[in-house]
């Protein structure tokens, strides 16, 4: 029982805390941020079947847009506002864990507890199978780490604790660009919801940042825990070519969403 007690309160074990950025650095970044923010209006893509991911990130980047357009009254989420990616065959599923992560970021920044509650009710009523196809190969099951993240977001938005809010599995290192991207987004969001982060999670993001020195998102998230925020801000301002996972039918708008998301993430560390 003693060990269980230790584990229940063990977020401090093997964990990392955030570092605060310097006000001067944030001031410089803010002026670039406002310039770029003026360039992106509304949902980055209404046609792409990765639209929800980028809409959520744009929202978290401060862009004014209607994230509800991706959600049915039942609470179900969809890849694009027309809600037909699966039916038209444009995607093998109506939604995915990656899309949910992007959406969760948007919900976090807009503090949209109502949208989260609707989705969690839908997910819980459907045993965490949240899209089409419904059964068998390709079914859209909310993965354990996404469940844990949504549970912690529920608590953060004062919707109460969810029993799955304590789920946290180690991330498996990947060499796929889109997996690295989503893992980084998940770890960064987890960091906003938790006082301290598992050291291994931060280590993984920093490893990814080291592998791709131009990836300003990974550099930013790593720097918030391991130091070097000034360098991360400078890299963001230099604005190298976006990483390969920034792709799709609206690449230029996604590039802006990606930049704004990263900038706003850093700016919010100063609050």
């Amino acid at each position, binding site marked *: 029982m003693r060990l269980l007690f230790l584990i229940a309160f*063990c977020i401090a074990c*093997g964990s990392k805390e955030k570092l605060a950025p310097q006000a001067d650095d944030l001031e410089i970044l803010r002026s670039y941020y406002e310039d770029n923010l003026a360039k992106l209006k509304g949902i980055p893509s209404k046609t792409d079947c990765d639209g929800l991911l980028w809409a959520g990130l744009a929202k978290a980047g401060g862009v004014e847009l209607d994230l509800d357009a991706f959600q049915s009254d039942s609470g179900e989420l969809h890849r694009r506002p027309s809600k037909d990616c699966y039916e038209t065959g444009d995607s093998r599923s109506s939604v995915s864990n990656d899309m949910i992560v992007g959406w969760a970021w948007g919900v976090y920044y807009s503090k949209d507890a109502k949208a989260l509650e609707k989705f969690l009710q839908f997910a819980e009523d459907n045993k965490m199978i949240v899209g089409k196809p419904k059964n068998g190969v390709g079914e859209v*099951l909310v993965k*354990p780490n996404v*469940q844990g993240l949504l549970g912690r977001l529920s608590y953060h938005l004062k919707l109460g604790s969810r*029993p799955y809010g304590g789920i946290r*599995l180690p991330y498996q*290192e990947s060499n796929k660009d889109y997996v690295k991207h989503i893992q980084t987004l998940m770890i960064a969001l987890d960091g906003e919801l938790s006082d301290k982060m*598992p050291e291994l999670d931060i*280590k993984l993001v920093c490893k990814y940042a080291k592998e791709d020195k131009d990836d300003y998102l990974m550099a930013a998230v790593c720097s918030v825990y391991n130091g070097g925020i000034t360098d991360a801000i400078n890299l963001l301002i230099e604005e190298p070519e976006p990483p390969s996972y920034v792709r799709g039918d609206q690449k230029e708008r996604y590039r802006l969403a990606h930049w704004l998301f990263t900038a706003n993430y850093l700016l919010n560390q100063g609050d």
Partner: protein
Amino acid sequence: MIYIPIARAVAESFSESLFKLAIPSHLRSPSTVTSKYCDVIHHDDVNQFSLLVMPEDVTLPIHVAADPSELIALLNQFVVDEKITQQELDDIIAALQALSGQRFNPAQLIPQSWLPYVMTREQAELAGYVV
């Protein structure tokens, strides 16, 4: 019980190597049915990690003739994979050496960096593991 994530590929052998601390292979009676210290459960969709179902307050004797090298080799791979630190491995090795001939609780040796991932039964079930 506590539910400890472990790389699926080594989960069964890890449980076996723990059991061998109590009864080394060369001393094992043919009538001994079990070969594992604890159960391992898998997930239909999560291929990377299985869960060790470990009693939280049960002690295991370390036989004086036990050879922990198999267990240490597995743990060493966790260091290579950067899942635990070299210091954490060194601490476990030192503890195993110091406890030779005595009883110990394997759950107490979970490295600090791994503790945030340990789950309760309810969490394991909700995460989709067949408990």
